[in-house]
């Protein structure tokens, strides 16, 4: 039964695609809610300790944060172009774009690492380990805890995303995807956009305002 083997219990590839999309949207909703707990905590403590939060925020390295925003947004654009290329029957180009996007993700992580190193040197550490002298501890240690949780959790997502993009890029370059079968690239792209969008919330609340 060859058609059976292709589509499994699905009536058609179309139905399968529909389900995959729906599944991805639901998954994205759960990811957003996972972060929602942290955003809530941030909002609450910011209203409790407005002074400390502002003071701690002023010590963030806005330049590096902005650079990272730029990196992620660019990689998101590359991924969008990759999806377009794969749909337009140019999987080779799509693969290259995906790998480039993954590379930008790696640079993002490196920049994040540099920032973390600075904080560690100055003593801007979470909770008990806090020994930053520029800002008094009360409230500011909570800011740093939330800073590490938000950015750390986000970096974890970037790491996963980089691996996903790399695998997709290699497979796409090998010609595994094309106009009739682009679903994995599309879903991987959705995931990367999610990582990007979450950063677009993390960045202003931690670095700006």
């Amino acid at each position, binding site marked *: 039964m060859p058609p059976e083997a292709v589509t499994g*219990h699905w009536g058609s590839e179309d139905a399968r695609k529909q389900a995959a999309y*729906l599944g991805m949207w639901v998954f994205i909703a759960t990811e957003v809610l*996972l972060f*929602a707990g942290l955003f809530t905590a941030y909002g609450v403590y910011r209203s409790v300790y407005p002074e400390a939060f502002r003071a701690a925020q002023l010590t963030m390295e806005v330049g590096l944060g902005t650079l990272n925003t730029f990196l992620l947004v660019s990689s998101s654009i590359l991924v969008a172009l990759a999806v377009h290329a794969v749909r337009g029957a140019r999987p080779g180009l799509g693969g290259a774009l995906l790998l480039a996007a993954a590379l930008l993700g790696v640079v993002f992580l490196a920049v994040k690492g540099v920032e973390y190193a600075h904080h560690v040197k100055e003593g801007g550490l979470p909770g008990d380990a806090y020994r930053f002298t520029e800002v008094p501890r009360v409230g500011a240690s909570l800011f740093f805890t939330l800073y590490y949780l938000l950015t750390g959790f986000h970096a974890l997502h970037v790491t996963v995303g980089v691996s996903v993009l790399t695998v997709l890029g290699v497979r796409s370059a090998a010609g595994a995807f094309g106009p009739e079968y682009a679903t994995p690239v599309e879903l991987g792209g959705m995931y990367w956009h999610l990582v990007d969008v979450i950063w677009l919330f993390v960045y202003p609340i931690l670095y700006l305002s």
Partner: protein
Amino acid sequence: MSPPAAESYLSDGRTLWSWLTTHDHKRIGVMFLGLTLFFFLVGGLFALALRIELLTPGRTIMGHLAYNRMFTLHGVTMVWLFMIPAIPSAFGNFLVPLMIGARDVAFPRLNLASVYLYVLGASVTLWGMFEGGADTGWTFYTPYSTTTGTAVLPVLVGVFIIGFSTILTGLNFIATVHTLRAPGLTWMKVPLFVWAIYGTAIIQVLATPVLGMVLLLVALERVVGAGIFDPARGGDPILFQHLFWFYSHPAVYIMVLPSMGVISEAVSAFSRKNAFSYRMIVYSTLGIAFVGFFTWGHHMFASGQSTFGSGAFGAMSMLVAIFTAIKIFSWLGTLYRGSIAIESPLIYTLGFMFFLFFGGMIGVAYATTSLNLHWHDTYSVVAHFHFIMVGATVMAFLAALHYWFPKMFGRCFPAKLANGAAVLIIFGFIATFVPQFLLGNLGMPRRYADYPPHFQSLHVASTAGASLLAFGFVAIAFYLAWSLRHGAVAGDNPWGSEGFEWRSASPPPTHNFHVTPEYPTGPHEYAREEVPHAA
């Protein structure tokens, strides 16, 4: 020549390996059934130990710390390892594809992954138990949970992992119901059990991630002193309660909605009538799923939240009661003038309706701030949620187990014995938990190993009821295990039910149907003409 197709999903590969690597939703359902029953047993043994300790004032069989660990593990096991997965993961997996004419769920491999995540999470939790266990209660209230020296960490991590299993299951059901309904099976023809599972799945995917993050934060608090919930470090323990109940109040509907689905099916099947006001049942399911997210503050009336907040949360809570009442009226409307067959699933159904009604009404009383302050954190609350979660949900679980046992295994069980056990269990529940309402009203706080002597007679009554219950469960375990091999062969549809799942063979073949079924009529359609209501 290809080998002949296996007769049923049970005989399609008999090795352990064929089960461990299966993608068949029915086998996955059966595995979940076995696993959740095992943890029901574990949780039940903890419960009996608690009841025995409370038989006399002072020390009976264990010290205070052991008691605290015991009730924590009892709660954790029962809530996360039994109640939440039992009906959706076991019966939902088995039945939803059959009921909508699909060959499997949307993502079979993800489905198998959710079994393994469950086993992993359960193992981590069990490991925590062997490390001595936590003593925080299943609610993990901070700052106690961040400072106590007991094995809280493995329990938190275990529950976190189980949460992912829940999310995957929910995600799978949503995609399945949306994309795999057989041609012609429109939304308003979907069986009520499927609707209930669908509503549950929405709550599962929306609420569980928040719980996951909260548990992780408590874990971090213990490991690196993150300070989020710790007042000594500038954090706020009340924030924990908000986030925890944002999950855990909807979670009580993860437990009760699937039960309501079971009851809707059983009521129709055993009164041989169309579901009365199908649409109202569907809308109230969605209503409960929605409103359930706005009631969490009724657990925090005594936490110093604003009076306005308490009032608003109380009022929202009462809305849930209205949706529940709609369902109860619909079931009564279905039973009314039906040709009722007194079989064990129906006996459990009647028990369910009694417990849900009684327990729910008391919930409405608790949602009234003034009354709440009298009963908060007393045994009366213990009785309330046991009435609903154990009284009602376990009733529905047993109804489902008996109603679909022939479907799952192709065998019948001794009916008289089953009816007897059902009656025994209902009386066991009443005897166990009614005394607890009285205890709470007299002022006995929850979670205490010791009490003044004048409470003893009520505690003895409760323990006696619990023994009846235990006896009933042992009886059920024996006759069902016996029936697996020796029960009379059931035939495809032993109850003469019109439920869609009975259109395939019992037990069903691996791919459920040999030809895709058609759906000219709606679900639960018995008589062509509706029996006139009200004379």
